[in-house]
């Protein structure tokens, strides 16, 4: 289902204002922050300044995260005195995947199947409990996010009669803005960033990159980005437009 931006709404670009508005409209029971264990920790910091220790946070534990990320999740939990709901994949689906495809099928078959089991299914389960969620997604993270709004109807997980709102408070921030905030407010961060990992995901699918590389190049680097048979290319004459 295609999403709809709130184009007619007043444009809010200050992440703190977006968060305040989100909590005011949805409260603490129907809204949660998705925390990946990376630099989106700034959302946890900002939200904790707004709603204190009750900030609702969940994180997707794929089972393949770096040890540093698991320790970082703990550090964040202790620093802010919050609960982090750590979500795990469905055991039966995961066991079936590993039994039939092995532990590294993503290097051969692409990462979609593994991500579907380890991330998307648990995420969908969690979002089924909510009316809105908050992500750390930014426009500068990938070419598919260049039109990312601060607020949108979540076209991926909404259902007929049950719209899910997605807030992206950092949409207009650049990576530099995030890191300036982290330094200014002494926010804890994942030590993997100091090892050249700009985008942090599962251990087998994350690598360090050079300063001139786009952060997306640090993820699933063995896959061919040009392999987009389903894309409507029109011999590359039609500008790519994001599907909401």
């Amino acid at each position, binding site marked *: 289902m295609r999403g709809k931006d709130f184009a007619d709404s007043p444009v809010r670009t200050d992440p703190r204002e977006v968060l305040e508005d989100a909590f005011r409209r949805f409260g603490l029971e129907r809204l949660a922050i998705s925390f990946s264990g990376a630099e989106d920790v700034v959302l946890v910091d900002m939200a904790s300044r707004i709603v204190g220790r009750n900030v609702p946070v969940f994180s*997707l534990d794929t089972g393949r995260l770096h040890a540093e990320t698991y320790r970082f999740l703990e550090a964040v939990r202790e620093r802010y005195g919050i609960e982090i709901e750590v979500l795990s994949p469905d055991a039966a689906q995961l066991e079936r995947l590993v039994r039939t495809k092995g532990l590294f099928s993503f290097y051969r078959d692409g990462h979609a199947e593994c991500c579907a089991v380890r991330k998307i299914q648990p995420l969908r389960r969690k979002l089924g409990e909510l009316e809105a969620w908050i992500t750390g997604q930014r426009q500068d993270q990938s070419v*598919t996010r260049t039109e990312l709004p601060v607020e949108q109807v979540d076209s*991926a997980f909404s259902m007929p009669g049950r719209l899910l709102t997605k807030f992206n408070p950092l949409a207009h921030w650049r990576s530099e803005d995030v890191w300036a905030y982290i330094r200014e407010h002494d926010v804890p961060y994942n030590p993997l960033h100091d090892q050249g990992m700009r985008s942090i995901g599962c251990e087998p699918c994350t690598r360090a990159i050079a300063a001139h590389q786009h952060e997306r190049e640090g993820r699933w680097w063995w896959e061919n980005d040009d392999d987009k*048979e*389903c894309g409507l290319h029109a011999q590359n004459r039609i500008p790519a437009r994001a*599907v909401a």
Partner: protein
Amino acid sequence: MRITFVKKVLASGEPCAKCRDVEERLERSGLMSRIDRVVVADERDETSEGMRLARRHNVDRAPFFIVLSDERTTVYTVYLKFVRDVFGGEPTPGSELEEARDLLRAHPDLDLV
């Protein structure tokens, strides 16, 4: 309700594999008869109706479905979500997983969550 199915023809003239797969599944499940129109998005012709519909609805991949119901238009890029939302039915564990994979295909940002 009026349903339009947009499938793609590649620059080579071949149908895209995913579109062919979805069309076969529509046929097998008997749902093809519920589709009002089948339109081609031809990569060799950006004026083809499917390419024009893709631009109008801001869709950048195929296949996709346009559902007009009660004067409201909804565009689906995930086949199983389209089937579930429009025709109903309970998802099975297998279909849920397949839908999750299709969600990633249609929403590549999700793998970075």
